[in-house]
């Protein structure tokens, strides 16, 4: 029950405050509105005045501009006429000066080219002489180098040839001894082979001679002797 009065009071206070604020707003709005009307009126007046002033200004300006333009045209024509004259004079003067300049330049170039030619000839001769001297020196150097190298080569070749000769001789001697030894061995082997062959031939000849030299009866006798020998050796038992 205590709450209700507080709430009532609060609500009442808030309503009052809001009302006051609203009133203030309304009042300020009204004031602003009236101010706005006044300003609008002033603006309309100014616009009316302004719309009339520029026309007069424009007319004044136009008249002045025309005047200025005519003056400028006049001056321009004067300037143009002056400049045409000046142009002709300057052209003539320029042409004259150009001709003299051209002539001076031609003389200068001719002189310079002659001097250059002379200088080039002198330098060319100098270079030619220098090159000839350099070539002579180079040739001499080459000759002396070639001679010395050839001498060195000859000496080295001689030395190597002698060494190669010694080595070859040594190898030939060794090879010769080896071959001689092999030849002796081969000779011995062949002689031995010949001996063996002769031995075989003798053996075969002996066989043939003995067998051919035996008579038919002797053959029979030898067979009987063989049978006798076999019997003695008890082959038949």
């Amino acid at each position, binding site marked *: 029950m205590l709450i209700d009065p507080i709430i009532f009071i609060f609500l009442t206070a808030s309503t009052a405050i809001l009302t006051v604020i609203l009133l203030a707003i309304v009042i300020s709005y009204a004031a602003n509105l009236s101010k706005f009307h006044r300003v609008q009126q002033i603006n309309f007046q100014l616009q009316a005045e302004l719309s009339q002033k520029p026309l007069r200004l424009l007319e004044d300006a136009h008249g002045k501009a025309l005047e200025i333009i005519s003056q400028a045209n006049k001056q321009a024509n004067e300037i143009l006429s002056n400049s045409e004259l000046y142009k002709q004079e300057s052209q003539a003067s320029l042409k004259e000066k150009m001709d003299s300049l051209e002539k001076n330049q031609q003389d200068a170039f001719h002189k310079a080219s002659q001097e250059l030619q002379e200088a080039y000839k002198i330098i060319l001769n100098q270079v030619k002489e220098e090159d000839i001297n350099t070539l002579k020196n180079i040739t001499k150097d080459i000759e002396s180098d070639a001679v010395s190298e050839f001498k060195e080569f000859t000496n080295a070749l001689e030395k190597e040839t002698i060494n190669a000769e010694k080595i070859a001789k040594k190898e030939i001697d060794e090879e010769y001894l080896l071959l001689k030894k092999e030849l002796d061995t081969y000779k011995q082997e062949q002689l031995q082979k010949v001996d063996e062959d002769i031995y075989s031939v003798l053996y075969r000849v*002996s*066989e043939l001679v003995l*067998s051919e030299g*035996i008579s038919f009866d002797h053959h029979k006798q*030898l067979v009987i002797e063989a049978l006798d*020998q076999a019997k003695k050796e008890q*082959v*038949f038992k």
Partner: protein
Amino acid sequence: MDKAIDTILSLVKTKSEAGEVLFCLENFAGTIFLSKEKPPIAEYFSRLKQELADELIHTFTEKVSAETSRSEAESFLKQLQTALRNCKILQLTIAFHPDDETIALFSSWVKKEIANNILLDIQTDKTIGAGALIIIDGKYKDYSIRKKIAGVFQIQKDEILGLLSHAKQ
């Protein structure tokens, strides 16, 4: 052994002759007791040597006669065939081609000195020079002159080579 068989064996000298005899005996056995019209006995043994053929003819004429029975004759025939097949073979390699006389000589020696039932198988090989190579019952003996010469050359090889080197010098 029957004496007749012994006599026949003494006349069969070589292995080839024995083969011939057996062949003739086969023919003889095959026909003599079977066919009524039989050829003369001599015809069966005509391919054999005269002495042997005569002995066989004489023997079989006695055996296949009226006095002897067939079984006896057959028995004798079989005994003869068996005896021939059981003969030992003496392979004799000699250096010449023997004639009949020589074969007879060797055969008579063998039958006299060794046994009657040994047959010769004679081969010829000139390389042995002379003498003989004897093979019997798996035994081999070399009595050729080739062996003797080889022996001499082997024994006296150094001497012979010495003679050769003297000759070369």
